[in-house]
């Protein structure tokens, strides 16, 4: 686990390395009371979403990752990792966070790109 202290105005926060996250898997970052799920796809792209399904708050970090999406463990909604949007007929969006990769280091910007709805 990486314990970090940052000041509020810092934009990019180092949360760990790519290797901390299993391929087609996810790890959680505790940001105060908020949980952020950081995903790594089969082709090593990294995404960060609030760990909260737009349906009934299911922990997306516990879902199955496939093709740029994650399937929520509670009721199988499929959420796009890129946009946070629910796919298919379901409607809703979870907050996403900008990710920057330097070498193998993963940085998050803790200001979400958009709020959940």
């Amino acid at each position, binding site marked *: 686990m990486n314990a970090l202290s940052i000041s*509020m105005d810092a934009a990019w926060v180092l*949360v760990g390395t790519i290797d901390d996250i299993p391929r087609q898997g996810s790890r959680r970052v505790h940001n105060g009371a908020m949980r952020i799920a950081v995903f790594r796809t089969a082709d090593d792209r990294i995404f960060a979403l609030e760990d909260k399904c737009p349906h009934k*708050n299911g922990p997306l970090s516990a879902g199955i990752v496939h093709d740029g999406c994650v399937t929520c463990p509670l009721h199988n909604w499929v959420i796009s990792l890129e946009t946070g949007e629910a796919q298919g007929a379901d409607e809703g969006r979870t907050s996403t966070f900008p990710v920057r990769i330097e070498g193998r280091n993963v940085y998050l910007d803790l200001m979400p790109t958009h709020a959940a709805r």
Partner: protein
Amino acid sequence: MTTKTEKLVIIGNGMAPGRMLEHLLEEAPGRYQVTIFNAEPRVNYDRIMLSPVLSGEKSYEQIVIHGDGWYETHGITLYKGHKVVAIDRIAKTVTSDHGVTEPYDKLVIATGSVPFIIPVPGKELPGVITYRDLDDVNAMLLAAQSRQKAIVIGGGLLGLEAAAGLAQRGMEVTVLHVMPTLMERQLDPAAGYLLQKAVEERGIKVICKANTKAILGNGKVEGVELDDGTVIPASLVVMAAGIRPNASLARDAGLATNRGIVVDAGMRTSDGDILAVGECAEVDGMVYGLVAPLYEMARIAASHLAGNSKSAFVHADTPTKLKVTGIDLYSLGDFADGDDREEIVLRDATAGVYKRVVLKDNRIIGTVLYGDTADGTWFNDLKKKRTDISAMRDTLIFGQAYQGGSPLDPAAAVAALPDDAEICGCNGVCKGKITATITARGLSSLDEVRAHTKASNSCGTCTGLVEQLMALTLGDRYNPKAVQPMCGCTDLGHDDVRRLIKAKALKSIPAVMQELEWKTSCGCAKCRPALNYYLVCDWPDEYADDYQSRFINERVHANIQKDGTYSVVPRMWGGMTSSKELRAIADVVDKFAIPAVKVTGGQRIDMLGIRKEDLPAVWADLGKAGFVSGQAYAKGLRTVKTCVGTDWCRFGTQDSTGLGIRIERFMWGSWTPAKLKMAVSGCPRNCAEATCKDVGVICVDSGYEIHFAGAAGLDIKGTEVLGLVKSEDEALLHIVALTQMYREQGRYLERIYKWAKRIGLDEIRRQIMEDTDKRQAYYERFVFSQKFAQVDPWSERVSGKDKHEFNPMAVIHKEAAE
């Protein structure tokens, strides 16, 4: 009406007489009392499809044409495994090698062909196999288990299909062909060359101009020596050097024979009461080796037997296709060079396409297509109708799509075919017949169209065309997905995927997706857990479980709750517990402030509301008291409920608690297609509710009544009885075998009652209760897989496995900026 039914005897039960009987039963039902002798010990099956059975794409059951029931329904006597050794034309009887003699009024000889064995030293060594019937395929499959080297002698249709099948089964294959190019009787050298390249791309070695001098070996095959002294090692040699009409029986009976049994255009031999059909028959100087003309013979023979003496056999060219997945070739008619002939050729090297049309007097007489065979039907139609092609000469070779204006898409091209265009070459079915039958009978599935028209019912290469015709005729009502695909990532259904995983020895999820042409790069949440299960089940010792393809519960070995916390259910074997266990649970509940404790419907205790981070510590404490995971989350063995039985109960007949505990201890940890719940009750009062479980046992005085296929969840269903056994050991053996059968055949998420409905209760009873060998084999495979499955997932995680799953990646402490 004839007053007395006549006796019809048939020698040989291959594809030709099978078809003949279908026609005869339709035209003159009840006229004959039919008796068949078949040297092969089985019913009539689609011999053409032996290659897909060899490669694993189909099973024997799928290629049976007439099952046992069919013979019974039609009152036909079938002597399986009886070879006819004599025909007495004076007494009008035939006699089999088992001594059965049957009189006939009419006799049909349909003995097919015998494979030609090249006369070289060593040809009789064990390990030299021909390729003609199911026994040959089984022998090859047995040899393929060794994954050693095989040699196929003969680079024709049969040889190449055998080679492709053996290669798919993991053998290292060399094809020896005596001519300079492959399939020289059907392909010109250019197409033969492309074919050789495609075969070699499959890892098969091809040696042309190879003259076999001897088969080497001491007591069994060890290799083949060629004329030039080359020695190629191999443990299996498949002779596919051609076939000869099987006319010896007829010859011995004094019938006129030449290459085959000589028949007239009405299929009559030189004896008016004896007919011959199939590959053994020679009509007008020709013998045949493809089913289309044989089916025509069958039709004519039936018609004569039904009393219509006018119908006559006419020769027609049959296109040849090779049934090797991924190789498209088509050959028809006469394509030899000649002064009076012209040819049009198209080559597209990058696409691997070669097309050649041979013309005589502006009419097509032959066609060779390689790589793109879509226009075969169209060329065949032009050839059959002797259409003068002068007007479209410049664009002819580009195919039907280019005739008249803009190119057509494939559907439009099929729509543009005339009604009398032949769609199914094997069965001679034309377009009009198919569309008319679909409309008249309201057919909507491919199987129905096959049943009613026979189109696409033999070699299957025209299936695409038939489907397009269905789409054309039915419009929106056509649903091509007769098989429910596993998910959007593939067109294959669960059963096909399971079979192909075994057949092609696929041992990882990426390998399955690559080989079975998954449409997505890495699958989805539906197919990945299913594939993971199939691989775990099929290769217990070799497959490395894919963690990321498991649902969260099976990944963290606890049940996720609606608020993202988890519940933990330890095993309480057979529902028994102790003060020590209960004390340990109480301590854990206090220590981790677990909000809820509940007795489950499965006779054990559930602790709910545990934070994910706390799981390993909770398990560590439970482990110290001897608890292992109850797998309350698993598509695997869950609970075995019991009642108190003879230990305490005044009605108990057997030790139901003991048996339940024994089953649970034996089977815990096993993964199954869906969850598996069991129960053992000590008497028919059934306090453990065994008769609504996946598997249940009701103890009775005389032993153990095994039940299965019950359900009490989304569906409620009482169990079926599997059978009664005498001892506890036998009960365990039968239950384990049943479970393994289900593990190997069930579709992912299919509970045992649904599987049983699909497979048939009788079939399951037959395999588990009656077939001792099968039962024992299932049992042993289960025991083997348990070696790798019975590892407590909780203790593994307490010792550090999958740590990342339980710990956050980072914890950010916010500090207000000063």
